[in-house]
């Protein structure tokens, strides 16, 4: 499969948005594009990093495995997002496993190509630093949330984040256009599948959300903000 970075709309969403033409040509020369089916793994936590990945379409979950085998989802990535670059910078193993949540088209650039391209394109380096700063902030917020918020507050916060990132306005409310299992939702905020199901039932009962065929629609975002103790 060949994708041209020049005409790639997803590139404009990510850190490569303002890459100069020569950089785009470099990327085109060195990248490889593949389609990953749901459940296929792009890279594994603990393996030495040998490439970075740019998502053209689809969604990918990044998770860490605990000693008990339980997963903690640390991020959901979508079109335009880069995966694996932190490990390349740090010259460390991948810090998480990346797995396709749905069919995803992903370009891979090997470590050697990235090492050659980055020094020639400072605009890319600046964008990556900005992205790193945002991810650090998100990781700090998540750590704070897990340490100080109740499970109900965390679930409200998660639903708000999903609404803001994947929400599509509809007649009833804002539908979350991302198919996550209840287990995966729990893994995002460090709670069990059973607790996730219970909390969603409570929110449904309180008419804060609607659930139809496992699809979640946010009916009352203000109530979620209040539950999550988020000040607007």
């Amino acid at each position, binding site marked *: 499969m060949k994708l041209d970075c020049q005409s790639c709309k997803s590139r404009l969403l990510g850190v490569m948005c303002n890459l100069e033409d020569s950089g785009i040509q470099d990327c085109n020369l060195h990248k490889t594009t*593949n*389609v990953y089916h749901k459940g296929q793994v792009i890279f594994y936590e603990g*393996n*030495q990093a*040998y*490439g970075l990945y740019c998502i053209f379409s689809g969604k990918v979950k990044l998770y860490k495995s605990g000693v008990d085998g339980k997963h903690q989802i640390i991020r959901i990535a979508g079109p335009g997002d880069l995966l694996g670059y932190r490990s390349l910078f740090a010259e460390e193993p991948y810090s998480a496993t990346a797995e396709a949540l749905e069919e995803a088209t992903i370009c891979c650039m*090997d*470590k*050697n190509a990235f090492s050659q391209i980055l020094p020639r394109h400072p605009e890319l380096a600046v964008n990556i630093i900005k992205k790193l700063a945002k991810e650090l902030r998100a990781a700090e917020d998540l750590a704070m949330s897990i340490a100080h918020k109740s499970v109900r507050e965390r679930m409200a916060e998660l639903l708000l984040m999903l609404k803001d990132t994947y929400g599509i306005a509809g007649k009833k409310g804002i539908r979350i256009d991302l198919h996550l299992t209840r287990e995966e939702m729990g893994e995002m905020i460090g709670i069990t599948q059973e607790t996730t199901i219970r909390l969603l039932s409570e929110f449904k009962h309180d008419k804060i959300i609607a659930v139809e065929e496992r699809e979640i629609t946010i009916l009352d975002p203000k109530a979620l903000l209040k539950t999550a103790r988020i000040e607007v």
Partner: protein
Amino acid sequence: MDENILAALMNQWEALFRAGQPLLFRKGQVFFYQGHHPCGLFVLREGRVDFSGDNCHREKEHQWDSPNGVALGLNPFFDDSPSCCTCTANENCQVIFISKTQLIPFLSIVPDDDHAL
């Protein structure tokens, strides 16, 4: 092929191998999937791999006793074709990864007819 060219190619290959990145794939981890274009070669140093896939020219779900030094993903890489099978570590595997970027200069010196080297 001319002996001098062959010797030059072998030297290049050894240089590539030395410049490659050592990686460990644990049991059950996938090197590449059926239908994928490889982003480089995995030269097996230690361990065994499985090949599986509907169109695999090897037997389906076949466990292949791979000799050390074999380059996984070689044919798809040189043919610029998708891999016919999924390659999975059957046990912990030590490999040397040679990236596409490292291979591009090597490809330019290999005559077209000898890509199956």
